């Protein structure tokens, strides 16, 4: 499946779910010209039309000679580091209320820098720990004492 076709299919599925959900929005009252559902339903309609056009376009493009299968072949490999950053960020968001700002942010910074910089030399570890060790408390001090914004 091409990139555009996958996108259009995913969007159409999302539109279908949301359209069904829009049925739960209360009906318009006697003094309203239109109910609360009409605006999101118009938008969902527009999104569906654009997704359908994208889908049709994707079939038209692959039916042209010389283009078949090109998109699948050119699709970039899943980037391990990008996936890793997302996983680390998800873990950070989950641990933030449990461990508090200082410990969870320090952990996130060290882990993410280790993933991106590598851990093969002592120099990299020094850079990693120094950056995290300075930046994390600095942001904490600025927010807590400079701006009076509470951090967990």
């Amino acid at each position: 499946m091409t990139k555009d076709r996958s996108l259009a299919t995913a969007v159409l599925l999302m539109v279908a779910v949301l359209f069904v959900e829009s049925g739960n929005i209360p009906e318009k009252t006697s003094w309203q010209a239109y109910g609360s559902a009409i605006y999101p339903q118009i938008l969902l309609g527009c999104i569906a039309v654009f997704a359908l056009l994208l889908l049709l376009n994707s079939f038209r493009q692959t039916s042209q000679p010389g283009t078949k299968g090109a998109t699948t072949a050119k699709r970039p490999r899943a980037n391990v580091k990008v996936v890793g950053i997302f996983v680390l960020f998800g873990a950070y968001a989950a641990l933030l209320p449990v461990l508090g700002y200082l410990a969870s942010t320090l952990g996130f910074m060290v882990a993410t820098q280790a993933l991106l910089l590598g851990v093969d030399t002592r120099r990299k570890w020094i850079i990693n720990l120094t950056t995290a060790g300075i930046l994390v408390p600095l942001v904490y001090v600025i927010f807590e004492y400079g701006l009076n914004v509470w951090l967990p």
Partner: protein
Amino acid sequence: MGESFLQALTEVGDVYTLSLIVAGVLFGIVGGSIPGFTVTMAILVVFPFTFAMDPVSGIALMVGVFVGGYSGGIVSGVMLGIPGTPSSITTVYDGYPMAKNGEPGRALGIGMLASFFGTLISIIMLIFFGPLIAKFSMNFRPWEITALIVFALTLVAGLSNGALIKGLMAAAIGLFITTVGFDRNSNLRFDFELDVLTSGFEILPVMIGIFAFSQLMNNIEDLQAQGDAKKVDTNVTIPYRKIFSDISRQKLNTLRSSLIGGLVGALPGTGGTVANFLSYDQAKKFSRHPERFGTGIPDGIIASEASNSAVAGGAFIPTLALGIPGDLPMAIMMGVLILHGITPGPLMFEQNPVLVGSIYVSLLIGAFIMVACQIVLVRWFARVSNIPQQILVPAVLMLCAVGSFALNNNLFDVWVLFVFGIIGYLLWKAGVPLTPLILGVVLGENLENQLFRALELDPDWTTFLTRPFSALFLALALASIVFSILQNRKITRTLKPQGGT
């Protein structure tokens, strides 16, 4: 207006606010100097620091970042041949060859001065045109405003590099995101019986998630593709006398490029990159020696830097006067104003004249601080632009998370950031332009309010077509779509004879 301007001058002129502008300009230049960081990212990172500030101080800081950010792209553009921001691409054409010819200080100095004059001229344009457009648009009723927002969204979607359908779809998705939660009639929509969704999504974590994650992940992928980044030579000296004589010989070029930048900045969806190419092209056409462009001449650097910096003032015109952001950084700036309880639009000039004056004054002071900082701290900025992405990405992500949390002291906003980060990244990988999406998020609530106000006054939808300006904006929206389709077809036809490559 004069009285408000003086009051604004007093408010912005105090030491605290001035130091905020200096800090903003410095951070903006740093942000612009680092390849792949961009002005938008700099604005997003600094924004959480304004939560506890009063609106004038917060806006002064943000304006500083804005002014500094547009001028900061020159450092890596000249020294590395890699534009720090997309709006300084043409700076590389002449700045990099000049640096390679042994005159990096001259290239940087010319660019900095041109940036200064560009910003200054665009501020004059903003002060002159802003109130005029706002006064005119005071006649706009909900029908016209609805149609104007639709026009702005189609224009931005149409400019999405051959991805019109995806651009329009992105804009509609952006608008849809704002429908989650209680609406203006206190009816719940799309809450899926989850308490956390009843108040909808905050604009800030949504915007940061969509933009910052895709941008940062893109930087990581680029890094892996390119290998180790080149380092900037920090040993730079600016030949002051020479650059002043270069600029004085290019007065017309500076003025023309600044006017192009200011005007292009005022058009929704265009931004610094378009201004950059347009003014470089015009400078070449008006030049007596067009063949020398690209070899390292001052003309090219001036055209590029004056125009991209002039976008800063120009982009404020539609934002302040109409409530329609000119480009992506301005869309974020508009989100900033909204979160500070200020609604940009024609009424802002009547209801908040001091605040409008503060923006003018901050821009003016920011321009002077920008050129002073650039010239004095050029070596330091060159050094900063060497910060590797491996350190930058975790730091920015951490600041994004802290900023999202600090907005309402709510951990749900960090999850919103994360989820929209994944959505933004996947959409970006699928080739969906993110600017219309973000613009949709920023304008969504206003569009719905105006549409319903119009329908409450007259339930007949055809009124949108019978009111002249409303009909004009809708016709322009349609025209922008047709124009994009024709443009795309032309590009496809041009590519076909070359074997579709």
